[in-house]
């Protein structure tokens, strides 16, 4: 849902996720006061010739339960890779409370700016 008039600079609407920057470090999930961020990830090995394989965490699932979210921004502040950011758009209302759990693609749609 877009806001009709341009919101003031720094408006806190929805929380957007740039999934390419996320390393599944779990810091946002641990710091969230409402426990509303769910992260699933797995480990992949990248073979390197002549050396031990390099492990990489791959993000499987990133979900924010907006029924719980209190828009404090702690997750955005704590993310070491700036994967999370504020978007001036608002989260749509939903007929069921499960409709307020937004998954990675929906959070990615909120990403604004450069």
């Amino acid at each position: 849902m877009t806001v009709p008039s341009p919101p003031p600079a720094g408006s806190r609407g929805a929380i957007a996720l740039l999934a390419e920057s996320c390393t599944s470090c779990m810091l946002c999930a641990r710091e969230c006061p409402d426990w509303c961020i769910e992260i699933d990830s797995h480990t992949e090995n990248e073979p390197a010739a002549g050396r031990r394989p390099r492990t990489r965490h791959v993000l499987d699932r990133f979900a924010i339960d907006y029924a719980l979210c209190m828009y404090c921004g702690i997750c955005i502040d704590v993310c070491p890779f700036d994967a999370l950011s504020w978007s001036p758009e608002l989260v749509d209302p939903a007929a069921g409370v499960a409709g307020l759990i937004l998954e990675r693609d929906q959070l990615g749609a909120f990403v604004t700016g450069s």
Partner: protein
Amino acid sequence: MTGHERAGAFAAALPGASLTSSFGQLTVDVPADAWLDALRRARDDFRLGYFDWLSAYEDTDSVLVVVCHLVALEPVEHLLVRTRVDSEPPSLPSAVSVFRGADWHEREAAEMFGLTFTGHPAPGPLLLPAGFEGHPLRKGFVLAARVARPWPGAKEPGESGSAVRRRRALPPGVPAPGRWGPADPDGGQP
């Protein structure tokens, strides 16, 4: 006299009292057996006649501390009067005889911390529903919702769903499984 001088004179007038200043807030610590005397002297001799609030907190050594905020009017000066409640079970004389407004404040402090204010005219819970067990604002009071709900942060990077390899990390405020709650938190599941 300035507020600081007044507070200093008040502290000097009471045996065993001491004055501290923190971020511009003056606090006088008095012994618990001089609590009512201190409040009466503050009201009658030191112009601190406006009772703002009375509350309590649990200190780091699990001792309850009762704090009373008094204000002198025209000009306005604030003072915190504080006492440690060392008795077991914790009890303090009720301040209602000095300040009638302390009535509900003491009822709330009593139900939230398990304090007894002796001589209170109408003791009883104020905010908590009938049948509520425990004293919620004590540090040992466990929030059951945090124990019951699985913590999303318990997973390590690279884990997903129920594939938890290591010992689960506990969120803040949740005691170790053997100390509070069901004996087997996973219900017998591996």
